[in-house]
């Protein structure tokens, strides 16, 4: 059994090295956020003295509270809308018969073939015409429906046994009651996978928020961070402190619900 133990030890060691390779940049980010301005470039890995003021300075130098509020509002609203519109459409496509159903479903899936970047210019002109530049609507409304979401929930609804619906009807439930009281709770894993992915995409979005806003009052954390690092680029510890402020909420949620995130991501690959 000797060679097998050797393989095992090699795997443990390799796992440790690979984990460090992926985490090191973030560890470095956090440690740099606690260093002095000169030490960032000349010192060792750990700060000589831990400079907590970097966080205070970053927090004061730009309206990060406003950015965080904006991002939270936009991500929550987008996620709630996507869950609602996807559940409704998926229900119709999975459980109802109506004229043009097949064509409309093809049209829905067809949106997956049209990348967002191709639509950047015309959509910018549209929100300009709506007078939506610098508004929450501009950052939410274009993303309130998701073909991927409809597809994911439709698959889940198709797998749910028909007897559930018959039983609900006998108990006097309306169609909408059946959808919201039974079908959605029963399919909680698919619904939460869609929720996680939508929230993450919305929280981390960069290019659209960058073109759709130019005032602090509507900026998201990502745009705020990008412009902050341009302005304060020379003060690395403060920039790193700002980055920690922006990344920390997602990292904390991820640390608490790691398995959930990874399963959601795995579900996203099943669409092929």
């Amino acid at each position, binding site marked *: 059994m000797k060679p097998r133990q050797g393989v095992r030890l090699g795997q443990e060691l390799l*796992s440790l090295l690979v*984990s460090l390779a992926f985490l090191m940049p973030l560890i470095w980010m956090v440690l740099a956020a606690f260093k002095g301005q000169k030490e960032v470039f000349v010192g060792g890995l750990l700060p000589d003295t831990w400079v907590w003021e970097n966080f205070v300075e970053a927090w004061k130098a730009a309206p990060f509270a406003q950015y965080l509020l904006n991002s939270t509002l936009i991500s929550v609203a987008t996620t709630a809308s996507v869950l609602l519109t996807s559940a409704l459409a998926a229900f119709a496509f999975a459980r109802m018969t109506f004229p043009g159903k097949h064509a409309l479903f093809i049209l829905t899936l067809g949106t997956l073939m049209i990348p967002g970047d191709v639509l950047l210019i015309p959509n910018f002109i549209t929100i300009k015409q709506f007078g939506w530049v610098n508004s929450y609507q501009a950052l939410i409304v274009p993303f309130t429906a998701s073909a991927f979401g409809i597809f994911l929930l439709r698959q889940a609804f198709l797998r749910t046994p028909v007897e559930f619906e018959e039983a609900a009807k006998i108990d006097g439930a309306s169609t909408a009651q059946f959808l919201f009281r039974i079908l959605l709770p029963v399919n909680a894993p698919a619904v939460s996978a869609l929720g996680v992915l939508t929230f993450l995409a919305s929280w981390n979005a960069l290019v659209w928020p960058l073109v759709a806003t130019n005032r602090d009052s509507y900026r998201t954390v990502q745009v705020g961070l990008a412009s902050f690092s341009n302005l304060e680029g020379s003060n690395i510890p403060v920039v790193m402190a700002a980055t920690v402020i922006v990344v920390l909420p997602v990292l904390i949620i991820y640390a608490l619900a*790691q398995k959930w995130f990874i399963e959601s991501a795995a579900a996203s690959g099943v669409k092929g």
Partner: protein
Amino acid sequence: MGAAPYILPALVVFAVFTYYPLGRVMYLSLTDADMLQPRPNLVGLQNYSAMFANPEFWRSMTVTAIFALSVTFLEVALGMALAFLMNAPTRLQRLLRGAVFTPVVVSIAATAVVWNYLLSPASGPVNQALGAVGLPGPGWLSDPNTALASVILVATWKGVGLPAVLFLSGLQAIPRELEEAAVIDGATRAQVAGRVTIPLLAPTTMVVFFISLVGTFQSYGLVLLLTGGGPAGSTNLLGYYIYQNAFSFFQMGFASALSVALFLLLLGLGLLQLKLSERRVHYQ
């Protein structure tokens, strides 16, 4: 009534923010639209002939092809290797799975800020570490010879977690009996991997290949913040070139023609994937 209240909310959003703009970008590509001109004039195919005559466009296409193929290759190869390691019954399994996927949840904006610092030429941590073992550190993002490779590495660090997780769930779906049967027949570990496991992963590999390829064609957020397309255009991805023409030079018509080119490219890839997945072999 009937199904209308259920499907209309989504369909209206798709109509206004996907299908209408797709038509509009095609129309705009035939005009001299800029930021200031609300009623652009039709100019025929002028933007397209300007595009094909522009060396910057061809360089951008070359950079995009190198970037997309390199990142896709790295994501498929490393993703698969990482999945094998993540699937091994080690005590560090949880840490490893968590670590590999962590960069996926970190935003592009934060990724760019952190790597800008790590790769800073004079005394960034990476070059400091290289200096400590007596190696000269390059100007990573500021040297035209290394900038694209640096962006490719950062994009892979950020992106490979998703393919790794997809390969991992592919691995876990493979029935153990098939691998065990090969072991009983006297196959070595390498033979089992090469002759049984990796061929069985073929459907996952194809999904990962196309997800990565299509994704990299569109991912220019990193370039936007890391290099701004430079130095000397060496990292000027097509997506960034569109962004730059539209929002820095305000040439909406020309940028729309570029967008249509990107659309046709991705549509071609999408159709290719459909064609291939019809023929794909199912092993189970």
